[in-house]
Structures are given as C-alpha cells and as structure tokens.
C-alpha cells in the first residue's frame, strides 16, 4: 500500500503536448478514477505512473520515492490492461505466478498466493487452462488475479471492463469494488465510462485535453460540476444546457423566448454576461398542461423502464426531462415543466466556469 504523488507532470510527443501539468495526490488505500473522453490523456498518465511512458517533465513519487527513472519492474505496481494481456502460452496458474517466479519467491509461498487469489476470484477450477479456453469474464478475472497475487504497492486499471458486454461489466464492476474493500489497496482506475467512475471511485479526476478539470468525490462532481465539461460529462442522460443573459437588476437570467428566471442572489459577473444554464433531466419536474410552469411540447418519448425521458421544447432549445411517472404522455402533447432555481447550474458562457 502506498500513496502516489504526481507533481506538474507533462507529456509531449515531439512538439505535441498531451498532458499540460497534472498535479494529483493519491492517498494510501484510496480508489481514484481518472475519467474523460478518449484522447484526454488519462491512459497516458496511467502509463507514466506504471513506467511504460517517459515523463517529459514533472515528478511522480510512489510512497515518497521518486520513480521517474525507475523501470516498471522496480516500481512495485500491478496493472490490469483493457486487453487483459494474458500470456497465451501459459496456463492460468502460470500467468498468475509469473511475477512471483520472476522474484524467485519460494514455491510454497507462490502456491499459497495463487490459491488465495484463485478462490477470491472463483478461478479454482480453471487453473490449468490456457487463456484461449476462457471466456471474456474469466480472462478478466485472471488478469485481476495476476495483479493481486503480488500484493503490490498500487493497482492500476486501464479501462479493464471496456471489452466486456454490459451485464458482465456491471457484475465485474461490483467485484472490483468488493475487491478494493477487502484489500484496501491504493488503486488508480482509468475509464471513459462515467457510471464506472461514479460507482467505483472514492475520488474522481475528470480530465479533458490533457488538463484536470475537477477533482472530487463522485457526488461533488455530480452536485457541483466546476465547469461545462464536467457538467456535460457526468450524469446520464446528460445535463441540459441552454443559453441566457444575466441581468443584474432582479437579478434574473433572460432565456430565449422571453422567459426570465429569477435568481435568489446576485452573481459575481457583469450585467449582460452570457450565461449557460445547466439542469439535469432528473431535476426537472414535469406537470400536466395547465399546471404551473413553462408549457412545452413533447417531441420524443424514451421509456427506460425505471422512468421516462421526455424531449420537450419549452423555448428555442430542446430540453430532456426524466420523470418517474408513467402517465401516458405522447408525442405532440403539451406538458408544463419547471426549472427549480436551486437545481440550476450556472456557467460563464465564455469561459465555461461555474458562476453560481
């Protein structure tokens, strides 16, 4: 178990910068998820921690020790790859014991370690099989088993569930979380799937274009996204965004179509500033036509089973609203939606930074 400190890490391929100075402190035993769209640099950062990519500038410390110039083998970390990367010419048992054999661990200790890991992961019956005789989920388990037999300082996960189908992914997600609870190991997990990030993380690091956008607990990011990127990335269905103009007299925000949203207190921005208003679909109450609220025409109805996603058009923009009610609402109906001011996220239209 160890802490990992990342200071001013930069990475560029030739003249192209990929990471623009990342600072991050990961505490002992913490489960941190790096989340962002593909190409945001999250995998590169993970690979730099593992020692698979050179560090252009900055410093990485594992357990207080600078590891910039250490070979991957000397960093004492384990990694689970998206492709699993099992050694195809070795059995499951050999795959899991390879790292211990390289370290010349005593045979009895190797046997104990792999049988412990195998029973933890339900692999006992498969130990003599080759990877090609395993299903996707079993391969995934072997890859995790290979990581845990070593009891490393930290676990790195590079999109480990991306190759699994939806149901298996959900199941393995639960298993990874359980595993972390029982081992308590420092873990860094890279994913582009915000649901994995929300469910697994102690802390989420949201990244975009090589820059950390926000670091916080899953609920922090959900409740108070620091900018438009995080607001749009976290949450499903995605947050509604529409533009308005701030009027200090009131204070109100004027939305297209003449609607005015009164604010409880003034914002720290100049009168006339363009504001992007965000509200999550699940925070928009939907009422029948004629009830209080903004009348809106239903354009699309998406039942999810749990509830229904309505695409409605109260003013210029289309707004998605999620409702648990199963009232038969059809395309073309008119409903009344409300935009509760305490649920609104307000962002500067120019910089995208949160202003509320």
């Amino acid at each position, binding site marked *: 178990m160890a802490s990992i400190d990342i200071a001013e890490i930069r990475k560029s391929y030739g003249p192209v910068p990929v990471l623009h100075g990342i600072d991050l402190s990961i505490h002992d035993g913490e489960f941190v998820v790096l989340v962002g769209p593909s190409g945001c640099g999250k995998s590169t950062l993970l690979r730099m921690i593992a020692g698979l990519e050179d560090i252009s500038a900055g410093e990485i410390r594992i357990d207080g020790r600078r590891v910039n110039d250490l*070979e991957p*083998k000397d*960093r004492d970390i384990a990694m689970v*790859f998206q492709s699993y990367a099992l050694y195809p010419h070795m059995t499951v048992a050999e795959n899991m014991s390879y790292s211990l054999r390289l*370290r010349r661990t005593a045979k009895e200790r190797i046997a104990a370690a792999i049988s412990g890991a195998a029973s933890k992961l339900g692999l006992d019956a498969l130990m003599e099989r080759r*990877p*090609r005789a395993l299903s996707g989920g079993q391969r995934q388990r072997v890859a995790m088993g290979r990581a845990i037999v070593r009891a490393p300082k930290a676990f790195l996960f590079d999109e480990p569930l991306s190759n699994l189908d939806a149901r298996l992914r959900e199941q393995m997600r639960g298993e990874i979380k359980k595993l972390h609870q029982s081992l308590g190991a420092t873990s860094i997990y890279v994913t582009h799937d915000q649901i994995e990030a929300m469910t697994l993380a102690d802390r989420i690091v949201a990244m975009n274009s090589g820059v950390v956008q926000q670091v916080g607990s899953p609920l922090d990011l959900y409740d108070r996204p620091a900018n438009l990127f995080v607001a749009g990335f976290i949450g499903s269905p995605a947050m509604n965004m529409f533009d308005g103009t701030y009027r200090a007299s009131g204070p109100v925000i004027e939305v297209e179509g003449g609607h005015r949203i009164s604010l409880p207190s003034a914002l720290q921005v100049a009168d006339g500033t363009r504001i992007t208003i965000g509200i999550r679909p699940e925070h928009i109450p939907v009422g029948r036509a004629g009830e209080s609220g903004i009348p809106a025409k239903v354009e699309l109805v998406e039942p999810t089973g749990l509830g229904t996603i309505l695409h409605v058009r109260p003013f210029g923009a289309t707004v998605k609203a999620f409702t648990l009610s199963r009232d038969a609402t059809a395309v073309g109906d008119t409903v009344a939606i409300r935009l509760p001011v305490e649920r609104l996220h307000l962002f500067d239209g120019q910089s995208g930074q949160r202003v509320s």
Partner: protein
Amino acid sequence: MTRPKRIIGTVAHRGAILLYIVFALFPLYWLLKVSVTPNDLLYSEGVRLWPSRTSIEHYLFVLEHSDFPRFFRNSVIVSGATAFIVTILASCAGYALSRFTFRGKYWIVALMLLTQMFPLVMLVAPIFKMLSPLGLTNSLTGLVIVYVAFNVPFATFLMQSFFDGIPKDLEEAAMIDGATRFRAFSQIILPLTLPGIAATLGFVFTAAWSELLFALMLISSAGASTFPVGLLSFVSKFSVDFGQMMAAGVLALIPACLFFLFIQRYLVQGLTAGAVKG
C-alpha cells in the same frame, strides 16, 4: 444455389486444386522416375511414366564414387549456419523495428529495401573483389557471410510483421510483472513468435540450400562446393549423366523435407489466440 449447382461447383473446385497439385508435383515425380531408371533404358524406352525395370545404381554411384557426400555436407553447413545466423539477427532487428522508435529508423528501413532492388548478378563482381583479398573466396565462411547479408533484410521484414502481430500489452504486462525488457522478449514474445521463427528459418534455409549463382562464382575448388554447384559436375563436355544427377537431386531434397517436417508444427498459426480480446 441449387443442389446440382453446388455439386458442380465443388467438383470444379476440387478438380482445379488437383490439377494444380499435379502440375506442381510433376517435376518432382520426373526427378524420381529418372533417378531409378537404369542407364540402358533411359534413352531406349521412349517417354514412359515408369520404366519397365528400376534400379538404385545411380544412388549407389552418387554416394560411393562421387564428391556428392562432401557437397552435401558443405550445403548443410552453409545453409544451416546461414539460417541460424539470419534468424537471430532478423529476430533482434525485427523486434527493434516493430517496437522502438529511434533516430534513423526510416533510413535504415529504406537502405534495407534498397539492397533488395538490385539483381544479384550485378553484385557478383564487386563482392568477389571484396572477398578475394580477405581470403574469403573458396571458403564456406565467405559464402555464409554473403548469404547472411542478402537474406537479413527480407527476413527482418518477415520477423517484424510477426512481432507487429503480437500485442504490445503482453511485454508491458511482463515488464510490470517484474521482467526486464530482454526477459519479456525472451520469455513472453519469442515463444509466441515460434511460427514466425520457423517460417524464417525455413525460408532462409531453402534459399541458401538452392543458391547457385554465388556458390558458383565464389567457389572454385571441389572441396568447398555446395550441392547445387556439385550437380553441375554431372554435366560433362560430351554428355549429361541424367540418372546420377537426378539421384543426387532426390538426395538433396531429403534435408529440406526433414527440416520442414520438423518446423511445420510451429508454422501452424494461432499460438497467440486468447492473449487479448480478439
């Protein structure tokens, strides 16, 4: 497709394959046929698929009274050494080209391709000029050096393509597991490249085994001749000893066949199945 149509299609398909196999194997068959035909029947019986009487006299003569065993031994040494050295060099070079980016990589690849562009005949004279003062003409070592030089570029590209087919993740996983890059290469990547190594060994071995031009130009003594050159010794000024020549040819096929028999199980692809999600 209807049933009769399908049957016709299958028959045509199989027929075409059969035709090709007959076409490809017929020269080998003729080699064998002539090698067992006694001299007195060779010209007297006309063209027949099998002689009325067979004998192994040519084989006995070739083995007991000609220089053929020595040619044979020379060929085994030259081809074996060439295949071995080329495969080692090509494995290392192919791995480097597949995995690393380094300064001058582009130019090295371009130069290697350039060497493949010239007809070998053009290079015989300069190579003779270079090897002669070094005392490497008339020597098996000289021949091995030349063969290695000519076979390394193609073998490197061949090995590179095999390494390209092996996911990088595997050696990265090994390196994180505690292996050095060399250990990851030798314990994880090489075993998975066995089909590629077998293919390269086989390719280079047969290329060296049947090479005539350089063997003929660089070697003048019978003591250092390889078997393709030796075959020519059955051609004399006034006659060609077809029976003995063919018998020698059949014997020369044996090591190549054995070699492929030995490596064929590695040529079967699919060793990497299951490593990563396909």
